[in-house]
């Protein structure tokens, strides 16, 4: 009975991984790698941008950035955010 | 581009200053203990080097003599390959210092004796090629 145990261990630890690895090669060819627009990373980007805007406002309140720079940077960030939101809404449809 | 040039000049300036600073300290260390030539015992004996030197080797079995009057004072023979050198050391000895220990000493050579003011024994971790180990395994159980 020992060799049943040995063979099953060999199967689990050595044969299964090889199957796991080869499996994707048998799918149909997929070429949509780069075009895959993914919703979750867009949402993450949106959150990140909002956080950056808030941090910018804080820096301005403290006095680390002058009025003109603050307004320029904030505008840039807001433009970026609206682009991302547009993409998100387009994707949802 | 003007401001860019300003910064490039500043960086270049700092680097130049630093290189001179390091070079200067390397040639004129404030403390004479800062540098030592790490050479072989054979070379030391041949050249009779008076500069501050660092030597490595093994403590010759049975050569450790501790002064009767001052426990801290000791002498021993440093063995590196075939070369042997009499050493005097008067600070507290590290725990691993014993017959056959691998040591690194720093100090000065004068008239046949090496006066060491630093003595280090190799770290206790067992690593490949440990000169103290001839056999790697114990053949009998340790008595407990």
């Amino acid at each position, binding site marked *: 009975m020992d060799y049943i145990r040995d063979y099953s261990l060999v199967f689990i630890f050595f044969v299964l*991984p090889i199957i796991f690895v080869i499996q994707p090669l048998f799918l149909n060819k997929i070429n949509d790698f780069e075009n895959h627009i993914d919703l979750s990373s867009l949402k993450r980007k949106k959150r990140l941008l909002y956080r950056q805007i808030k941090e910018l406002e804080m820096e301005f309140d403290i006095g680390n950035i002058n009025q003109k720079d603050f307004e320029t940077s904030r505008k840039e960030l807001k433009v970026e955010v609206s682009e991302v939101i547009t993409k998100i809404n387009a994707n949802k449809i | 581009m003007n401001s860019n040039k300003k910064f490039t000049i500043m960086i270049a300036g700092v680097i130049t200053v*630093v290189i001179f600073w390091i070079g200067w300290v390397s040639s004129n260390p404030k403390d004479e203990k800062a540098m030592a030539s790490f*050479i072989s015992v054979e070379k030391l004996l041949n050249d009779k080097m008076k500069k501050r030197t660092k030597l490595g080797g093994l403590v010759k079995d049975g050569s450790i003599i501790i002064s009767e009057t001052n426990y801290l004072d000791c002498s021993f023979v440093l063995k590196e390959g075939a070369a042997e050198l009499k050493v005097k050391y008067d600070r507290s000895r*590290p725990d691993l210092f014993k017959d056959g220990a691998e040591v690194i000493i720093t100090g000065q050579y004068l008239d046949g004796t090496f006066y060491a003011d630093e003595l280090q024994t190799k*770290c206790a971790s067992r690593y*490949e*090629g440990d000169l103290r180990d001839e056999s790697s*395994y114990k053949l009998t159980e*340790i008595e407990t």
Partner: protein
Amino acid sequence: MTPIAGAVALNLAFGFSILSIICLFIFTLNEDKRLFLTGQRLSLGISFFVFLATFILWYQLIISNFDIDYVARYTSIETPFIYKISALWAGQSGSLLFWLFILSIFATITVLQNQSKHHGLMPWVIISLSIIQLFFLILTNFVTNPFMPTDADFVVANGNGLNPLLQNVTMAIHPPTLYLGYVGFSVPFAFAISALMNRDTSTLWIQSIRRWTLVAWLFLSSGIILGGWWAYQELGWGGYWAWDPVENASFMPWLTATAFLHSIIIQEKKDMLRIWNMALIILTFTLCIFGTFLTRSGVMSSVHSFTASSLGPIFLIFVFLILIVSFSLMYLRRSELRSEKRMESFTSRESGFLFNNLVFVVMCFAVFWGTLFPVISETIRGTKITVGPPFFNQINVPIGLILLALTGVGPLLAWRNTSKQSLIKNFTFPILSGLIAAIIFLFIGFKGSVVISFSLSVFVLATISTEFKRGISARTKKFKESIFKALFEMVSKNRSRYGGYIVHVGIVFMFVGFTGHAFDKEKEFSLTKGQSDHVAGYEFTLLKLSETERPNHYAWISDIRVTDNKGEYVTNLYPEKRIYFHKNPDVNRRQPHSELDIYSTLNKDIYSIFSAVDNENGVAFIKIMVNPLVRWVWIGGYILVIGTMIALWPRKD
């Protein structure tokens, strides 16, 4: 049977790593997604087999299977369980497997975490990680295999066992902590290479690796501090840093990593310093590999070193390959790396960070120069000239003080340009505090770099409190919050920034601790029962000398009473002289060891060492060191860790 399975697992991991690299590389050429999936799974497979091999080796260590050379060398039947576990990283081949093990954990996390994001970057990230895994797999498969069977004609009854000097908890966790740091920088490095390969040097790769970098930095910092703590507590030479090549090997990547950590803030906010950031992470990772190499080869002679092994040249080749390939890539992508943004003023936050990078790199070079001086001097002059702590201190103390000053100056600078009014408004209080402190210290009688160090510490603490005050008052004005609520909200909403300031406080405390060195005093003397001697205003009286036998050692215990110069009682110290393996018939296998006793206050440490005992005459040879302010180093270390954890604290969204 299982040891063979371990070796086979390592073989399979090796094969998978080659396949993974080839598979993903072909994918980058023909875009067939199936190849990406397979390549990704191959990468997970590498990790799987490495985990298997590691657990098998651990199992062999636990069951004390002395048929395996590694188990026989580093454990014995009596070795306590926890040290059988830590024996995995006690020796060369095991620790390389352990490096690989940690790398595989990180690679697995990276792959799984990014399954739905960063598709563009991932192929080259995985390729890079697989190449690093491949290197360590080559080492553990063909050069120094942990599963090597015992080379003996007889059955080995018991192994060598772990040296008692290494049997304490700190020594068990110091290497893994350092390794988590070293290995941790592989991931940011892999992302950097991927960004270069993909010609995407925007902030995407930076945002992906910010947390990784901080975690790796935390482990590296902790590992270094733990090493110093262990040296101080156990080794008995009274210090915690000796500028030993192996210590330096961990310090150099820390310097470039700290610069990197700061510098990526600028790239995220202003898209500047791209070239610096690329160069810094490449340098950091290279220094991590170099650090592992320095510990494992016999190039430098230090108390840590292993004597010459074939590992040295192989590591060196790998280091050169990393540098050549990475910097060539940087050169090829130089147009993408150049930023249109320009630095405008010397008194801007951007230039502050630029200068910060410069100082860190300079210090790294200085340490590198000192560490490799013997090799350089041997190549040029024919003699190996070693340099000791006085050399390193002479060069690095000024640089360190400049860094300390920068820590204070940086946060008070504004973006792009700090107006004159802002300069005056922000710097008046800190500079005044620093100057007043300087005057006071000079009055007390301190001189030179001690005064500078203490005054700068006051200066930096003043700037940090100014920063907290500015943030709080901005919130109380805008949101009408109470001071405490404002403080809490402010830190909570800006964890990196304020966590970072807390880390700076920790660094300042450590500098205070370092400065205490200038006042160290020591003395060696002998005492018989009832005798006393004096050091640094304290009187030490030997009350009693006793002996006892414990399970694995014999001990002489001294009872020393300490009183101060007014005669007031301070404490009792009980340093011991121990002999491990005291019953071993082979006298050379008996291991003497001094167990220190340290009386520690904020003000100073009284450090006692029982050097030797003259049993017949009842004489104890004692060494006393009075080390001021050492505690501040450890307190600073704790604060550093707390600050980093605040910075790392995950957000709910």
